[in-house]
């Protein structure tokens, strides 16, 4: 199967996934305690007003019709208006989601930059001091809750040393990066611990593989063997873990944005749930779910590129 066919097939698979996401989001929002009408009108609304709003929101229709209306509006780019903020949900997503994406991408990059070289050192120094120290340090990172780690980093590098801002998002791209550094580091630590452990084990497995011995038998330089023969094979399993961790990373972003007072999607989500702002909860859930599926798609493509057995 050529790579293009693999891509086409993988894209087609996205359709049932999206339908499933739509159903889940639709049902989930209706399972939340309370209902949108009383959220809009308050608890002491008149029956006539309730009926009017129900009609306006289409809540008097049969559930199937409601779902159809929901799907139709989603595809016409209308996710409704925020009850609390009185803004279109799409506008809110456009404002807040990029911040969260930037935070997640930075965290993912920091995690990779920390994990890959250290995994190599640990694997090559297997069972020696360097290996034990790296694994010990990451074990500590892995066992600390995200918010606690965030608070420590904030206290030391923000409040005490004043190297980084203690919160907020700043103005302009570079300022954003500066403001997001500590939060993404916080997010990155546990992911990098997972990646490091996985990659270290994968590298050790690959180092023992016959094809690595055969590469040595060709008289290749060790650095070439590590980059061309070892890293690529070891990354295949790690990429899967990495893709699966993006979901965790996004939920970690919710906490991190709260600790560091960053106006991202996670904060908005939490605020909206407390404020019973159903359209926002629905829209944001949808956006995040689509984001995660797209990440999985990218992971699969990366995997297919690394491992010819997947696609070809």
């Amino acid at each position, binding site marked *: 199967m050529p790579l293009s066919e693999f891509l086409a097939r993988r894209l087609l698979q996205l359709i049932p996934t999206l339908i499933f996401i739509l159903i889940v989001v639709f049902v989930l929002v209706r399972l939340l305690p309370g209902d949108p009408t009383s959220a809009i009108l308050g608890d002491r609304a008149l029956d006539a007003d309730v009926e009017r709003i129900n009609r306006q929101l289409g809540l008097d229709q049969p559930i199937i019709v409601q779902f159809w209306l929901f799907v139709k509006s989603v595809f016409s780019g209308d996710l409704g208006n925020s009850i609390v903020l009185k803004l279109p949900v799409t506008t809110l997503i456009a404002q807040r989601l990029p911040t969260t994406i930037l935070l997640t991408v930075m965290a993912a990059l920091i995690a990779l930059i920390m994990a890959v070289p250290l995994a190599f050192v640990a694997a090559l120094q297997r069972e020696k001091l360097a290996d034990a120290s790296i694994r010990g340090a990451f074990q500590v990172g892995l066992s600390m809750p995200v918010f606690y780690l965030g608070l420590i980093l904030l206290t030391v590098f923000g409040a005490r040393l004043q190297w980084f801002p203690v919160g907020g998002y700043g103005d302009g791209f570079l300022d954003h990066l500066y403001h997001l550094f500590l939060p993404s580091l916080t997010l990155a630590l546990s992911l990098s611990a997972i990646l490091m452990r996985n990659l270290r084990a994968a590298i050790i497995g690959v180092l*023992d*593989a*016959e*094809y690595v*011995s*055969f*590469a*040595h*038998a*060709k*008289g*290749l*330089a*060790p650095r*070439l063997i590590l980059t*061309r*023969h070892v890293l*690529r*094979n070891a990354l*295949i399993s790690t990429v899967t873990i990495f893709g699966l961790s993006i979901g965790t990373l996004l939920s970690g972003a919710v906490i991190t944005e709260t600790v560091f007072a960053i106006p991202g999607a996670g904060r908005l989500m939490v605020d909206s749930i407390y404020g019973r702002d159903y359209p926002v909860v629905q829209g944001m859930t949808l956006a995040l779910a689509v984001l995660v599926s797209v990440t999985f798609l990218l992971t699969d493509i990366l995997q297919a590129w*690394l*491992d*010819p*057995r997947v696609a*070809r």
Partner: protein
Amino acid sequence: MTDTVLSVRNLTTSFRSAAGPLTAVNDVSFDVRQGEVMGLVGESGSGKSVTLRSIMRLLPRGAQIGGTVTWAGQDLLKLSDAGIRAVRGGQISMIFQEPMTALNPVLPIRIQITENLRAHTDLDANGRAARARELLDIVGIPDAARRLDEFPHQFSGGMRQRAMIAIALASNPRLLLADEPTTALDVTIQDQILNLILDLRDEFGMSVVFVTHDLGVVAATCDRMAVMYAGRIVETGTVADVFARPNHAYTRGLLGSVPQAGAERSMLLSIEGTPPGLAAIPPGCAFNPRCTFAGDTCRTTRPELTSLGPDRSVACHHNDAVVQAGSPVA
């Protein structure tokens, strides 16, 4: 002998284990001459592969290699890392036993061939591409231009074996260490590959150490042979001599289990039992529990490898009796 290219002396290799070191290759010595095919035979676990890997220093960390391996006036076991790299794949190449795992699954065959050329020749990119195509032609892989861009999983077992041979031959090595290059191939392909190796020997004067446990293949391809048992060489000689007059009971047993053209396989002579594990090698002659010639000395004293003449040696207390019993294939 002036035409000796490789001289292995007292090669001893052990692996670490919880119960102490396990010696897989013990005091092994042999020479390989220019343009010669030297057969290394023995049952599974007798140390054939470890011997080849020790010569190339291709063993996992923790393996201890002792003795000397003299190649072009240098001891390969003492060479610097850069020094051994220049020898590996350039002057001495190795065909691995297992073609299914020895090729990198994520790299196209082209890269796996050209990286060898890049390391050992002055060819430019075009030259390397041309040579890669030529090599696939030489080893009999049809449609070379297309095949070069394929990955190992698109090759059958026989094709992978050929690809591995192409890689090993890429930089015209002067010595080929071939570890069972034909096992798991069907008979026609096996013949083609054996003939290919012999052609290259004739054409380029390449020397070959040919590992196998198939004595029929030894008879068809090798000039001289060494028989290994439990990590030691127990008999050496020209193939004709060893087949005509085996001096070691184990060699005689091996020959007895070779199916012969036109004759019933002689079950009487096939060897009873299995070779010992590395942790439980019996005292005296390692073969004594399975040997029909064994006497008391065999159970207490290990027979030394003793020269019987030029190119001929054996390690057996009762080799006269073994010779008397005659060769099962003579």
